[in-house]
């Protein structure tokens, strides 16, 4: 029996789809073929903006831009004879590639048997048989770079720590994922805990560390629970312990919980936190590879980095190195959120363009609004405007645009997002999370935020933009750790690409996206208003009054610009400017 999956991929063909569905079903009935095919309406067929789309299972043919004239042909050729109709066909390229998420959604995270069945711990066994030098050699071949954001080559990090003399060394998994909108590390810890443990053990073996530490934020209770369960079962099976796989390598792992400070993702602050101290960063050098936890050589790797490692040691570094671009190998997981249809995790080979990620995988912008920018790298990153959407995603290419790869948050902004508002949000986040130890970050951040607030309230002056630039540069140069050095990036990148918006706020005292409450005036168009009172009922400050006959009006003195009425009105009667 064939299954015909149907969907309107434009989002505007509801009636046409209904007619098509009815016509298809009756054609089947009229030809006594009801038991040959089931017609099913679906939610997402994986193709976008191609009109009415049908997917035929089990063959997987995809037919696009259909109308009722195509029905007879589809039934006669494909349903009856199983033939493909080339003229209607669309070849969908799968743009995603799952290396890090290879087991997520497939294995039961609480079953070590399923992980072992999916080649689990084979990479570790290979590594132990190879010896540490060859493991590092293999990592060098793979070209894997740190997925926490900075992109430091992993083999080099391991090699440095390996070269430092010391009887006791540590390897830490950095699971203090704190960027707003980024959650791929949580998903990997929860969905495939054993792969992170295996990666940590391989790293420990390569650098000569017998102790592994998972540093996971306490806000991820399920991740902590699953990692703990996985560690326990590994201990009982003898995968963690002494003389692992008969190699003479001993290893043990423990979990430390982060208390929810963003700065603890910075490696020196993380080390302080692991030691039970307050999460303050300290100047480097000495680097953690020389003096880390309890003064011992320590290597710190991000969750996603570690999840790549079992694959590399199982398939070989050269195999991994085939994926990606010259300077950035492998894949990257992005947490695609914001104004995008399919929010969620996507994993793409390095070198995929932003446009492919947002439009081909993400399905485009929510409600078909115009896209304004893509934010990558969280509070340390920047805004990438639409003219650069064909940029291939790599560490260097994003840096050139004034953003960073970061840990992998990717937030889609549409025409209704105000760039000053967004900058204020990110900077506000860094000001809240600044540990206060160094002045440039503590004072600079607060001052920049005050200026942004002033601009968004319509009290900005032209010299404010000069001041923002000056403080930003001081913060970049003089802050102690990465948090302060990068906190100004969202402001700098929006000033660079959206200078017009800043000028509109400062000079014209207008917010082009109608987002900054002080700069937007709400009123009601009496001709469109039907007097339904929905706006008045949604107003939190009772600024809207009126009745069915005289229609409704907004008291601008009371209005706080929350936009509730604008979103509630079904007749586009609320005017804002």
């Amino acid at each position, binding site marked *: 029996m064939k299954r015909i999956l149907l969907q309107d991929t434009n989002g505007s063909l509801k009636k046409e789809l209904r007619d098509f569905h009815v016509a298809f079903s009756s054609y089947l009935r009229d030809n006594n073929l009801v038991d040959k095919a089931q017609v099913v309406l679906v939610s997402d067929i994986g193709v976008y903006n191609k009109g009415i789309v049908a997917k035929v299972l089990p063959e997987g043919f995809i037919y696009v831009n259909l109308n009722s004239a195509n029905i007879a042909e589809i039934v006669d050729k494909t349903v009856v004879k199983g033939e493909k109709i080339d003229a209607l066909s669309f070849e969908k390229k799968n743009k995603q590639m799952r290396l890090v998420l290879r087991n997520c959604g497939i294995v039961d995270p609480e079953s070590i048997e399923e992980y072992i069945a999916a080649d689990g711990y084979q990479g570790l066994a290979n590594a132990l048989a190879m010896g540490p030098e060859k493991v590092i050699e293999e990592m060098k071949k793979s070209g894997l770079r740190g997925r926490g954001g900075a992109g430091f080559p992993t083999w080099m990090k391991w090699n440095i720590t390996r070269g430092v003399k010391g009887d006791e060394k540590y390897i830490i998994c950095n699971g203090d994922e704190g960027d707003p909108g980024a959650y791929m590390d949580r998903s990997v810890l929860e969905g495939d805990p054993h792969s992170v443990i295996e990666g940590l053990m391989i790293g420990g073996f390569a650098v000569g560390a017998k102790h592994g530490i998972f540093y996971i934020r306490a806000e991820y209770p*399920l991740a902590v629970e699953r990692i703990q369960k996985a560690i326990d079962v590994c201990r009982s099976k003898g995968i963690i312990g002494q003389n692992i796989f008969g190699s003479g390598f001993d290893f043990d792992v423990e979990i430390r919980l982060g208390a929810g400070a963003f700065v603890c993702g910075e490696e020196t602050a993380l080390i302080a936190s692991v030691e039970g101290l307050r999460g303050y960063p300290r100047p480097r050098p000495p680097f953690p590879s020389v003096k880390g936890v309890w003064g011992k050589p320590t290597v710190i790797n991000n969750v996603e980095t570690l999840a790549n490692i079992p694959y590399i040691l199982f398939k070989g570094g050269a195999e991994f190195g085939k994926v990606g671009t010259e300077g950035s190998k492998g894949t990257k997981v992005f947490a695609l959120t914001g104004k995008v249809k399919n929010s969620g995790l996507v994993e793409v080979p390095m070198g995929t363009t932003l446009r492919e990620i947002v439009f081909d995988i993400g399905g485009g912008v929510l409600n078909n609004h115009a896209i304004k920018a893509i934010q990558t790298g969280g509070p340390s990153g920047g805004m990438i405007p639409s003219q650069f959407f064909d940029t291939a995603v790599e560490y260097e290419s994003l840096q050139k645009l004034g953003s960073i790869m970061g840990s992998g948050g990717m937030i889609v902004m549409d025409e209704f997002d105000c760039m000053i508002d967004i900058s204020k949000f990110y900077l506000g986040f860094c000001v809240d999370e600044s540990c206060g130890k160094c002045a440039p970050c503590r004072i600079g951040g607060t001052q920049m935020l005050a200026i942004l607030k002033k601009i968004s309230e319509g009290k900005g002056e032209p010299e404010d933009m000069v001041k923002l630039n000056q403080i930003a540069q001081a913060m970049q140069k003089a802050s102690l750790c990465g948090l302060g050095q990068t906190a100004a990036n969202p402001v700098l990148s929006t000033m660079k690409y959206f200078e017009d918006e800043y000028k509109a706020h400062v000079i014209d005292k207008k917010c082009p996206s109608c987002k900054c409450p002080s700069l937007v005036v709400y009123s009601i168009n009496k001709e469109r208003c039907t007097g339904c009172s929905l706006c008045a009922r949604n107003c939190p400050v009772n600024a809207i009054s009126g009745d069915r006959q005289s229609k409704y009006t907004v008291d601008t003195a009371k209005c706080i610009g929350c936009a509730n009425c604008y979103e509630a009105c079904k007749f586009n009667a609320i005017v804002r400017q």
Partner: protein
Amino acid sequence: MAMTREELNKLKSAAQSNPPRNWIRVGYSTCGVAAGAKEVLDVLNEEIKAHNMDVIVKKCGCVGLCSAEPLVEVNIEGAPRVFYGKVNKDVARRIVDEHVCQKKLVENHIYEI
């Protein structure tokens, strides 16, 4: 006791032999649980038991389409393997009744991933 590589390989071949023919996987990461995966899992287990079907229901991690959670992947002989998204108790019952028992796909909840 430390495990040897031979024991690991033995475990691997044991775990790979006899894969279940009929199974349902429920996305059970934070995104799924927050969207109601626990209820869905409970209903699926109850209904499979009530219909006395030979189907294994199990948890898995997040497959990535968080906006459509709770996600349920269904693999039953005689019907194509599909993902159902935005599953609630009612849809879970329909999955067992229509997809598992009658081998008919459930309308309006299929997501291609």
